[in-house]
Every structure is written in structure tokens, then in C-alpha cells.
């Protein structure tokens, strides 16, 4: 009796019996190897099922059904705002990751004169000395601005076409959460430059959180690390901006788009 495991379904023989190109053979070998270990077939079936549900059973669109001569093509750009904000989010994520190589969230004095902090000096370095650094920061900032603008306009489009109605209420609320997260993203990034505007916008943030009834002091300490701006404020906003918010926002965007996929686009009526 051989100790070698039997190939129960004779995958090897099956592959030999067919004329396969090297690419096909390599692909099948990897697929069979993974499938033996991870039962990929089950998941592929689910994916296949989803694909055919989404693409092959598409009912006639509103224009086709009522023969409206495709009169509303000029509204289509408004229906691209959601994907536009997603694209801007991806661009901001990539340029932000590259910026993160050069940025350090520290309020220690950078030079002997002691006026500028290390955080400010690292942005100064990115903008004046780093190759393409100016473009990188500009791109990050503009993709963030564009994302916020697109998200606002997307919300208006959804509101004025009544696309939030049953069965899409949950996705509307998820969208409110996402637009808030986008603004927190923007605010936390605004703080990171640690220039005069950033510092005093942070000061307003501390006062705002202190004004929250009952939980104010707790919120201020959690978010800002104290009642006045310091190293811990910058550190916290940095971690918020590059760790917590990306994870949360990416997950929620995936769920948001997944629900749109399941429910279909709310067509204009």
C-alpha cells in the first residue's frame, strides 16, 4: 500500500486527456491545488450565482419598458457621482499612503529657532525638496476636496430623485454615516498640517466637543487627548486619519455599494 495519497477524481488524468496551452495548464494546476485545500468550488458557485442574478436576469429598464426614447440620458452624469467619489477615495488613499512615507506626526521643535514643528517641517520638506512631492500633496488634497464635493452632490441627487425610498432606507442612513465619516476624514487631515489654521480649527474642535452635554469632557479627552492641543492631539488625529477611518470607511463603502448591487439602481421615474 502506497503512502502517497490517491487522486480520487483523477484530475491529473483529466488534464492529460485535454490539449491545454501552458497558461491553461498552469491555471488549472493552481486552481486544483487551491480547491483541494480551500473548497473554492463552493465559493465560485456563490459568485457565479450572484453574477447571473445581477447581469443575466436584468429586467427591462424603465425607458425600455415604457418606450420613452431614452429621453433622460442627460441625467446620467448625476448617476455617476457615487462612483466618482469612490474613484476620488481610491486616488486619495494611494497618494495618502505615499505621503505617509515622508510625514511624521510630531510637535517637537524641528529647528534650533523652535518655531516650526517636525510635522510642519516634514510637509515643508514634501512641498519644497521631495521630487514630485508638491504634486503628491496637491493631488491628495484635491482628491479629498473632490470626494467631499461628489459625496454632497450624490446625496442631493439621491434626495431629489427620491432614490432613498423603500426598500433603500438603510442605505440612505448608511450614506449619512459615510458622509459624516468623509467630513471627519477631511477634518482630521486638515489638523495634520499643524499650521496656524489647522491649530485653531483644532481649538474649535476641542471647544465643540466640550460643549456636548454630559459626555463633553470625555469626548474631548478621547479625541484630542486633553483640553488643549498637544503632541497627543496630533498623534491621535494621525492614527484616526491613517488607521481607523480608512478601515471603517472602506468597509462601509463596500457594504454601501454591495447593497446598491443587490437592490439595483433606483431608476428615475
Amino acid at each position, binding site marked *: 500500500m502506497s503512502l502517497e495519497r490517491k487522486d480520487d477524481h483523477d484530475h491529473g488524468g483529466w488534464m492529460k486527456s485535454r490539449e491545454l496551452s501552458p497558461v491553461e495548464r498552469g491555471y488549472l494546476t493552481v486552481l486544483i491545488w487551491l480547491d483541494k485545500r480551500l473548497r473554492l468550488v463552493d465559493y465560485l458557485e456563490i459568485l457565479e450565482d450572484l453574477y447571473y442574478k445581477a447581469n443575466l436576469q436584468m429586467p427591462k429598464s424603465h425607458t425600455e419598458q415604457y418606450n420613452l426614447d431614452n429621453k433622460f440620458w442627460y441625467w446620467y452624469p448625476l448617476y455617476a457621482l457615487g462612483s466618482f467619489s469612490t474613484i476620488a477615495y481610491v486616488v486619495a488613499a494611494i497618494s495618502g499612503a505615499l505621503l505617509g512615507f515622508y510625514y511624521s506626526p510630531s510637535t517637537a521643535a524641528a529647528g534650533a529657532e523652535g518655531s516650526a514643528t517636525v510635522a510642519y517641517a516634514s510637509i515643508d520638506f514634501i512641498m519644497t525638496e521631495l521630487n514630485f512631492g508638491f504634486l503628491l500633496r496637491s493631488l491628495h488634497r484635491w482628491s479629498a476636496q473632490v470626494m467631499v464635493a461628489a459625496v454632497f452632490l450624490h446625496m442631493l441627487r439621491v434626495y431629489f430623485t427620491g432614490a432613498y425610498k423603500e426598500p433603500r432606507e438603510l442605505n440612505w442612513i448608511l450614506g449619512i454615516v459615510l458622509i*459624516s465619516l468623509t467630513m471627519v476624514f477631511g477634518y482630521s487631515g486638515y489638523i495634520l498640517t499643524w499650521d496656524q489654521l489647522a491649530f485653531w*480649527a483644532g481649538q474649535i474642535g476641542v471647544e465643540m466637543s466640550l*460643549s456636548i452635554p454630559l459626555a463633553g469632557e470625555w469626548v474631548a479627552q478621547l479625541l484630542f487627548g486633553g483640553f488643549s492641543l498637544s503632541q497627543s492631539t496630533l498623534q491621535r488625529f494621525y492614527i484616526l486619519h491613517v488607521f481607523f477611518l480608512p478601515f471603517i470607511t472602506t468597509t462601509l463603502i463596500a457594504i454601501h455599494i454591495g447593497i446598491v448591487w443587490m437592490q439595483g439602481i433606483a431608476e428615475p421615474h
Partner: protein
Amino acid sequence: MAPSDETDEEVRADGTGIVPPDDETPTWGERKARSQGLSRLTYEYFERSRREDQDLRMESSYVERDVLGFPTWPHEMIRNLAITSFFVGMMIFLAATLPPHIGAPANPSQTPAVILPDWYLYWSFGLLKLGPLNPDLAILGGQKLMADRTYGVLANLVVVGFIAIVPFLNKGSARRPVEQPFWAAVGVFGVVFSITIAALSVKNLVPMDPHLLFDLTFLLPPVAGFIAYAVLRTMREGYMFELNRRYYRLRPPK
């Protein structure tokens, strides 16, 4: 399992033996049907809704496509690629032509004359300046119920909360603004208010009397909303006329 099977192979109790299904092994469908309590309810509900869907499908005259939209490759992919490159190119163009500004380094001992958040937070910043609207109660001897700052933060929560519950206030199948003039007018009110409150938040920079600006902040939105309502109500007459004409042309009255 038959007794003869048990004799020629010893029973393994470590869970490694694979027992082939025989006639008495319940299928997954039967297992679900036999279950108790909440899982039984879930099963019954799903079976019911599946049957309802099937009935609806059978009796509807809805035409389903046999072949279906464009293939993902190459049509959809090329279109998506074109749209994506256009948008990304637009952002790179903006980034190249309008580079960002960086101010003087942070100085805790010197408050600048103008403190501003980014533009998309102006509305929230403006809601913090609603102090003059915070009522002072005669019972409290002219004292305010809450500090102006608390009032501003609560105003933010009220605005966001109202937007969140809109789907539960406005129901029905109306979609276009002409079909629901009131809610479209509410939307116009909101848009104009977000702009005026943003202008109020930067009142230092707006060349206008601050009192006039404050009054306009709360006067303009209702006016705009009212105009939108009037216009849409007027448009609705013509819209319904068109809709009815199309309907009766398709299905002439007997």
C-alpha cells in the same frame, strides 16, 4: 448503517470517518423542514416568500431579457476605464494648476484674525453661531436654558438626525420633484439654507452688514422653498396632463 458494515470496519469515534449518505440520512431540505423554534420560522418564511415570488413571476407580464446588456469585457471594462481615466485626469489637472497653500506654522500664543475649517464644514461652523436664536426663558429670569455653544452642537445633531429620518417621513412611490412638490421644496430649502449658513459662518469675510446677513440666512431658504413649491405645483398640472394623455393613448377608454 447496516450491521454488516459495522463488522468489517471498526467504528472511529474521532470524527475522521466519512459516513456516506444512505436512504435514512436526511437531506438539507428535510433537516430545515424538521427544525424547531426560530429556525423553523425562518424556514417557513423563506419557503413562503419563495413561493410568493414564483407566483408573482408566473402571473406578471413583465418581459425579462434573454440576453442582457453589454458583455463585461470589453464593453463595460473599456467604458469604466474611460470614465475613470477622465475623472483621475481631471483631479491631476486640478492638482497641477491649483496647488495647496500652507500657512504659517502653529503658534498657540497668537490667535489669527480669521479661523476657518475647510469649506465643507462651513455649514456646521455656521450652526455654532446660532446664539441669537437660543431662547431665554422668563421662568429662569432671562437665563438661557443651555449655553450658546451647547445649542450650536445640538443644532448639528438635529440637522443630521432630520436628514437621516427623511425616508421614514416621506413614503410612497413618487420619485420626481414634480410628483412631490412639498419634499422637493424641503430639499431646496435645505440646499439654500446650507449655503446661507455657510455664508454666515464666514461673516467676517462677507462684505455685508452682519445683522442683514443673519436675517437673510433665515429668510432666503423659506422664500426659495416656497418658490420651488409654487413652480413645481404649476409644472405638476402639465406633467399629469401628459401622463394621462400617454396612458389613455395606450389604453383607450372603452
